[in-house]
């Protein structure tokens, strides 16, 4: 018992207001059953419209050619790959929360992991769009997958980092989806059992796969969940590592850098957590989840943001140091160009948003202040996008031969496509909170049981 006392001191209850199991069920399921608050409909209307813009832009692109973007020689990749890396990065926080914190026994994850995982899926969906549509001939994009064909007899080039990307991203999407769905099964069963309309009963009946919470099942279920967490952890690290290979394996100054893998992963977690904060702050305001998503959750996330911000800042320093120390004139110029070239403002914006802004979280007052954390999280998202742009496009604009140096100006299509991808992301997220439990009832109840005052351990 003594150790439990300590436990409670170290981990004060994460669920405040002493709700009962039924309260949790009612609160969380209730959101998906009752009418949405009016603000939901407004928001949904807006995001759907923006998604429409995305569809329009992508169709225009596919019908006309990459020329509708600002890309050129030498800047073959610009907005599209920047957006791709950006969204993949966002996705990483979800997996981190659901898998890594799970393995680290961070119990505070329980009320946010479901939403975080959903965010991962939707972010990866948005990310996937860009490589798919950035190819000159989208109708040939399936050539990127090793589909056997007797007709040509030719295969993919597995030496290409882009090929690694295809496997990494599709694996990541699949595993994230499995992990998310596995976690959902018991809650889907709950919705099934609460369902009043035959339609809901039928749909959730199918989705919950006939789950009945048998003790025999729980034992395999928990094992599966643990294993998925164990698999997702190296996976999530590998995905951004491989994304960074796209650049690290090339020979372009500003790309050709060995510190990219850890640098990119840290950046991904950084931007991802910022996005989670943005979303959760909104969600708990709109749906009144203050008892489930407590200030402790937000504060912990802000701590992670601060830590990763320091890592990212350190990576910047190392990058510049390496360039200078290498004595390689091309490397040196690339980084000089990043901060003082035509795109100087991108470089400085990235340093301000990613390194300076998060430092306010050293103060507890700041990292527990909702408006402040909201603003910082937005800044971080902007800054991380700029970082990717600086790496992808700015490096390309001036590489080896001064004769071939070029400039880059995005077109309205570039900008609207990026905007549209946010529309898609939020549309999916709004649909998620509308139809699925955005908090894992099973886990919350399990934790309540653990926190319950009259604990019965096997000590008896």
């Amino acid at each position, binding site marked *: 018992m003594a*150790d439990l006392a*300590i*436990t409670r001191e*170290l*981990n004060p209850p994460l669920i405040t207001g002493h709700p009962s*199991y*039924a309260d949790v*069920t009612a609160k969380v399921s209730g959101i998906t059953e009752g009418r949405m608050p009016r603000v939901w409909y407004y928001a949904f209307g807006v995001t759907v419209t923006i998604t429409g813009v995305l569809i329009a832009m992508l169709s225009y692109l596919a019908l006309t050619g990459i020329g509708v973007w600002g890309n050129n020689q030498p800047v073959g990749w610009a907005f599209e790959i920047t957006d791709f890396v950006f969204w993949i990065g966002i996705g990483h926080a979800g997996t981190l929360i659901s898998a890594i914190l799970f393995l680290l026994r961070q*119990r505070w994850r329980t009320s946010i992991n479901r939403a975080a995982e959903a965010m991962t899926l939707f972010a990866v969906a948005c990310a996937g769009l860009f490589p798919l549509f950035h190819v000159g001939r989208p109708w040939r994009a399936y050539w990127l997958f*090793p589909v056997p064909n007797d007709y040509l*007899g*030719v*295969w*993919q*080039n*597995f*030496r290409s980092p882009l*090929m*690694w990307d295809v*496997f*990494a991203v599709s*694996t990541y999407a*699949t*595993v994230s989806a*499995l*992990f998310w*769905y*596995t976690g959902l099964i*018991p809650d889907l*069963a*709950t919705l*099934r*059992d609460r369902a009043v309309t035959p339609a809901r009963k039928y749909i959730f009946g199918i989705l919950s*796969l*006939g789950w*009945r*919470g*048998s*003790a*025999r099942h*729980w*034992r*395999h*279920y*928990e*094992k*599966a969940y*643990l*294993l*998925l967490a164990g698999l997702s952890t*190296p996976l999530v690290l*590998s995905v951004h590592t491989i994304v960074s290979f796209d650049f690290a394996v090339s020979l372009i100054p500003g790309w050709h850098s060995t510190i990219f893998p850890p640098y990119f992963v840290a950046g991904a977690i950084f931007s991802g957590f910022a996005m989670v904060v943005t979303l959760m702050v909104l969600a708990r305001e709109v749906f009144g989840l203050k008892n489930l998503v407590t200030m402790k959750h937000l504060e912990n996330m802000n701590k992670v943001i601060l830590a990763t911000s320091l890592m990212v800042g350190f990576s910047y320093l190392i990058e510049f140091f390496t360039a200078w120390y290498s004595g390689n004139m091309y490397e040196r110029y690339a980084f000089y160009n990043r901060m003082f070239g035509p795109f100087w403002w991108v470089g400085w914006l990235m340093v301000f948003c990613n390194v300076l802004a998060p430092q306010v979280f050293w103060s507890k007052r700041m990292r527990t202040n909702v408006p402040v954390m909201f603003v910082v999280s937005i800044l971080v998202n902007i800054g991380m996008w700029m970082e990717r742009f600086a790496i992808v496009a700015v490096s390309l604009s001036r590489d080896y031969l001064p004769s071939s140096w070029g400039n880059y100006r995005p077109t309205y299509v570039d900008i609207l496509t990026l905007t549209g991808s946010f529309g898609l992301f939020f549309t999916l997220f709004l649909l998620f909170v509308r139809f699925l439990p955005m908090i894992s009832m*099973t886990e919350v*109840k*399990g934790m309540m*049981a*653990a926190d*319950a005052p009259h604990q*019965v*351990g096997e000590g008896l």
Partner: protein
Amino acid sequence: MSPLEDPVIEQPEPSSGAAAAPAEPQRQIYGIVAEFEDPHELLKAVRAVRHRGYEKLDAYTPFPVHGLDRALGLKASNLGWFVVGCGIMGAFAAVLLQWWTGTIGYPLVLGGKPFFAPEFATPITFELTVLFSAFGAVFGMLFLNGLPRYSHPIFEHAQASRLTDDRFLLAIEAGGENFDAEQAIAALEAAGGKHVEVVAE
């Protein structure tokens, strides 16, 4: 139990005791089912009932109750083997794909690199290993649990609709040796179970 340990996923170590073999000849009734309001009562009841010699038990809970599987005398899950097997398959498939297409399928000189080399085969091999393992974990779990399943007798119980909400059901399944409905009902009531019902097959 260490302070940071999360009770939800505590690892059951293998315990002795008769296994609850699911494969049983057809029965008229599924078993006797009682409802409890909280996991601790349930645990107490399980122990009590087993004390009376009932081994063929199953419990139904809205969340994994810590220590329940040991109380019921369930063996640890053997899902891990599925996953390992699938992982190895994935790795093998990946290497085969990259080696065959590069050296047999259509050998092409690309960037002066060899037709196959572990250096550039590693990332994809890793990814496919993870992918196959993940499939193994999810579909293995469903397979071991006999899911998806359309229906189950337990749903006949009056409180079944709350077993995914806030109620905890304990079932003495018919077919255990010296199973007797009357005594089973008595045993469950004695253990403090409410809504003690005979649930038909």
